[in-house]
């Protein structure tokens, strides 16, 4: 997947001694010098921060700056419930998807069982995924990644008179309003810089940075000129219902009840191409009604707050790809890492590891040697 830019003829004047800053070449001359590679990660949602984390661990001698206009609690990730139940991406082979999910699950499972769990906003939750008709695939590919997966018993299904089949399992909930600040704290602790700034064009990062990692989610529509990207609007209700200890998800994925640390999230909607960030009262009533049908005790819920998030939907699935931007003699390597749609949190660590590998390949010493000047 790595571009063959290394094989392309080097252009522009080069002079190692004169330390001319010449874009792409400069990147590699910096490598040969002992200066750290300067990496910019654009985006501070779950994808941006976890990628920065993985890069900091995988790539030696680099300085990382996370740049974003939005940070928690204002990112798309913050609206998501964060339940580890993966979504299928059309162009991603199932084994890859399973690997991403497993890596994410294992990473979060370790946190959930440590003293960090509370700060990181990660905890275990059990519950049910229920179906109104028997699904084609009775055992999903991720059944052995979550804990204790089994089919629901008849006695358990009695709770859901409209449903005829179900899965019972234990999975993780990763709450971004806690997880993102926790990641940020860790990043700062390892010397990563955090910058609040809106980037309108990736070239703004040149020549200050040698490599850009684009984790801008829906922003890639502009930043990567990816016209395929569109929002999949989701509206949810955050309610107080602390007696709800189990998740309930209708197999269609449209109706769900996800209990968390400080609230229960009721959802939801999937509205294609809808950019409206304002909650719709009619939709809220619909969500509440659908959820009460599954869990009647929710009628006692209070302190109901509406939230909207725009899922960064990409029809082709997650874009994990290195692109060598070129313009007016300048070169800028960009590792794209966006397009997670509904399933970002479920696979974020697995895809971040992959993105970090791409960054690592990008900064490795060039295979074609550059001419040395005679001093």
């Amino acid at each position: 997947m790595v571009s063959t830019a290394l094989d392309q003829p080097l252009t522009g004047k080069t002079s190692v001694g004169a330390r001319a800053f010449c874009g792409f070449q400069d990147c590699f001359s910096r490598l040969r010098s002992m200066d750290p590679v300067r990496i910019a990660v654009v985006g501070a949602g779950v994808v941006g921060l976890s990628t920065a984390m993985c890069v900091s661990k995988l790539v030696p001698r680099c300085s990382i700056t996370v740049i974003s206009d939005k940070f928690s609690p204002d990112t798309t990730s913050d609206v998501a419930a964060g339940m580890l139940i993966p979504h299928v991406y059309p162009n991603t082979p199932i084994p890859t998807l399973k690997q991403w999910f497993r890596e994410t699950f294992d990473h979060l499972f370790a946190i959930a069982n440590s003293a960090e769990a509370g700060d990181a906003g990660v905890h275990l939750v059990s519950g049910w995924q229920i179906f109104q008709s028997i699904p084609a695939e009775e055992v999903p590919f991720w059944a052995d990644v979550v804990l204790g997966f089994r089919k629901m018993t008849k006695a358990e299904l009695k709770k859901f008179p409209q449903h005829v089949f179900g899965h019972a399992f234990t999975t993780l909930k990763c709450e971004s309003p806690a997880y993102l600040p926790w990641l940020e704290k860790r990043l700062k602790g390892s010397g990563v810089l955090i910058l609040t700034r809106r980037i309108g064009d990736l070239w703004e990062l040149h020549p200050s940075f040698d490599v850009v990692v684009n984790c801008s989610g829906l922003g890639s529509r502009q930043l990567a000129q990816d016209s395929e990207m569109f929002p999949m609007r989701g509206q949810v209700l955050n309610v107080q219902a602390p007696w709800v200890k189990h998740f309930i998800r209708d197999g269609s994925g449209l109706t769900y009840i996800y209990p968390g640390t400080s609230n229960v999230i009721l959802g939801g909607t999937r509205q294609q191409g809808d950019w409206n960030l304002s909650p719709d009262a009619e939709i809220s009533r619909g969500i509440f009604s659908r959820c009460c049908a599954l869990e009647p005790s929710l009628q006692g819920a209070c302190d109901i707050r509406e939230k909207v998030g725009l899922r960064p939907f990409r029809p082709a699935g997650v874009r994990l790809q290195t692109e060598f931007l070129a313009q007016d003699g300048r070169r800028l390597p960009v590792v794209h890492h966006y397009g997670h749609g509904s399933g970002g949190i479920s696979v974020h660590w697995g895809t971040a590891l992959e993105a970090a590998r791409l960054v690592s390949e990008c900064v490795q010493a060039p295979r074609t040697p550059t001419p040395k000047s005679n001093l």
Partner: protein
Amino acid sequence: MRVVVIGAGVIGLSTALCIHERYRSVLPSLDMRVYADRFTPLTNTDVAAGLCQPYLSDPRNPQEADWNQQTFDYLLSRVHSPNAANVGLALVSGYNLFHEAIPDPSWKNTVLGFRTLTPRDLDMFPDYSYGWFNTSLIVEGRRYLQWLTERLTERGVKFFQKKVESFEEVARGGADVIINCTGVWAGSLQPDPLLQPGRGQIIKVDAPWMKHFIITHDPEKGIYKSPYIIPGIQAVTLGGIFQLGNWSEVNNIQDHNTIWEGCCRLEPTLQDAKIVAELTGLRPVRPQIRLERERLRFASSNTEVIHNYGHGGYGLTIHWGCALEAAKLFGKILEERKLLKMPPPHL
């Protein structure tokens, strides 16, 4: 017909409600009152974590297994209703952990989704090598008692705070039937060498990320002497104290340390949890529940007592089955006295 219920814990109030629901319509003269020296939040029921789970071993009296089942089924039918939270009810899943394999409990089919733990489950609990996972119910003592009180008040049942010194006193006051739900203090009304306190201490913490109960077992130590963590509606209960014969109702610092260290070792995420309360309760321990009639003889009085006490650490777990049984006994009293205008309601 004057009925006096002595005791306002879960046994007293649920028995009162059960009898009133079944007999008020066929016995218009039913005048029911509750006498107690302690009401919620000062009863032992208020201290209980409220998890519906019988002891592991089969009860000495096989009827108790039926009463456990009846209680679970009754509460399960209510947990799916819109006012479940108001009643204090919630479904909760979790883990029972052991140091070695043991046979499945007799109640495995009463609870939901019972299964043994997989190796991955057990990875979370390095000190344990075997266990179960199942879905059960919690019934929060305080909320449930408040709900029962509301239902009884609606029905015109009157509450009186008083310390009853003897059955005789109540009989002379005009009671035709006394329902004795005095729990661990039953011995002060009638000596019972089989009844002892099983002192328990619990710490309530704010740990809303805990969605599962975790109960450990150490057969050498005995029931409730091993750490347990039980989430409630608002707070999480940490426990692991069971001291037979200890009447102290005061929190003890060593017990605090035992609970805290045991539970944090079991669940490291608790280390940062904020403590919101610490309470001591006295489980009314008895080899089996005393649930039977007794006819008192004071001068000319013809007072019946229905004893319903000695529920140990499983009062909430078994309360409704016992209430139904007490109601049956009450029905028999009415039949004997030919007080029923209509056939007794089908129980």
